[in-house]
């Protein structure tokens, strides 16, 4: 917990410059995200309150919390999918706008259009001001990046759930988001596929350098991927007053982390305790 997350990221980015594929066009200008006393109530019932946090450009922050604590609500607010929040959310140097085009969202379900091929689905994510040839070469690179180049002509129902989720990730990356918002993107996948997707996300992050906000309920996933972990929850059991920042911890070590590493055990049990689960 002593190492600064920004240093981690730079070391990791430096290591990745030796990568064989340096796709210039998929690299994003990563942006910071600042939460200032953010809260959200639905019909008078407070779900979130007093969330303040600054995410530095290029950082990966995992948002951890038990079901229904407002993780997704917070993420949707950053993407401009929900305007009912209180407080301020600033991306880069200006406040978040409706369906903010500086962000891209990856949902828990792939949400692909079933009647379009994988390639056509990824194309949907391209910014509209892009020329056709630029768009095509960017889609090529993204399909290559997520390992779907050979299956680009297939329809969503002809590929596996993991592949669909990879296509969804490629679609989100197509607009070169300054902030990538992922809402339990691997939650519906089987355990083995989930691990592979985590590795893929790290690979993507190394190449694009985009800021990532990742909502998850999986402590191990958060430890594996994040620079910092934001634990949301209520005080004790009194969640009636809404969830807020319970703790914000930096994850030590440099990615890719060893999944079997024992030095994270202490942090892991602290996080489990914070979620109200015994790690034993």
């Amino acid at each position, binding site marked *: 917990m002593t190492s600064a997350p920004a240093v981690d990221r730079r070391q990791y980015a430096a290591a990745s410059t030796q990568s064989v594929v340096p796709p210039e066009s998929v690299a994003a200008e990563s942006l910071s995200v600042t939460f200032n006393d953010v809260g959200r109530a639905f019909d008078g019932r407070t779900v979130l309150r007093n969330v303040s946090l600054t995410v530095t450009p290029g950082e990966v922050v995992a948002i951890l919390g038990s079901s229904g604590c407002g993780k997704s609500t917070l993420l949707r607010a950053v993407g401009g999918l929900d305007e009912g929040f209180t407080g301020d959310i600033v991306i880069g140097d200006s406040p978040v706008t409706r369906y903010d085009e500086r962000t891209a969202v990856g949902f828990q379900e792939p949400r692909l259009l079933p009647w379009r091929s994988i390639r056509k689905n990824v194309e949907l994510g391209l910014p509209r001001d892009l020329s056709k040839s630029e768009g095509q070469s960017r889609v090529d690179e993204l399909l290559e990046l997520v390992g779907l180049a050979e299956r680009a002509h297939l*329809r969503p129902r002809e590929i596996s759930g993991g592949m669909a989720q990879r296509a969804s990730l490629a679609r989100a990356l197509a607009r070169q988001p300054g902030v990538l918002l992922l809402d339990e993107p691997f939650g519906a996948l089987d355990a083995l596929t989930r691990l592979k997707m985590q590795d893929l996300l790290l690979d993507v992050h190394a190449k694009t350098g985009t800021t990532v906000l990742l909502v998850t309920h999986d402590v191990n996933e958060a430890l594996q991927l994040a620079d910092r972990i934001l634990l949301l929850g209520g005080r004790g059991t009194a969640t009636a007053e809404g969830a807020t920042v319970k703790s914000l911890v930096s994850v030590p070590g440099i990615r890719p982390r060893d999944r079997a590493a024992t030095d994270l055990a202490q942090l892991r049990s602290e996080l489990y305790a914070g979620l109200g689960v015994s790690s034993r």
Partner: protein
Amino acid sequence: MSFDVVLERLPEINQAMLETFAMIGVAIPLAVLLGTPLGIWLWSHAPAGLKPTPKSHAVVSALVNMVRSFPFLILLIAIIPFTRLIVGTSVGTAAVIVPLTINAIPYFARLVEQNITQLGTGAVEASRAMGATRGQIIRNVLLVDAKPAIIGSITITTVSFISYSAMSGLVGGGGIGDLAIRYGYYRYETETMVVACVLMVILVTVVQYGGTRAARWTDKRVSA
């Protein structure tokens, strides 16, 4: 039961079938053409829609309900001045097409609204998050996804209005349903009524069969 009388009625039966085809063939395409945008409008301007405008939505929705609640016979008579304005006459097949269309537009619009409402919100939200405009979402997501359901709605509307068209006799509109009433019921030619009804059953069956096939054929989720 002797069907000799039916043979004598064959020219009238032919004529009546053509009149029915004309009524349905004009009213239904017009209803689809005008009812689809109205249905999309009703959905997207609803309080929870893509572009909520609750006040104008309430007004349009009330108008749609009003037209739909009119008994067809009353509507047929009530809009006679309008019918005369459009087709220049208030009797005959052309004159029936006007009230049929007026009645079918809100009917079909409600079905389209329902078809779109029943689609999941996931793809729409994902599209909005990717910066798609409302027009793109309607054209590329909603209408494509709802296509099989909308074809089903066209089938339902056609079948309903084959039945409605039987009331056209009131203004001399003709049609096979009207023939069943005039010859079969008023003139006690039971055989003619039976034949006319059988023809209507066949017509409805063919429409329903074709509609179901078309809906299945366009359903990309199944046949991809």
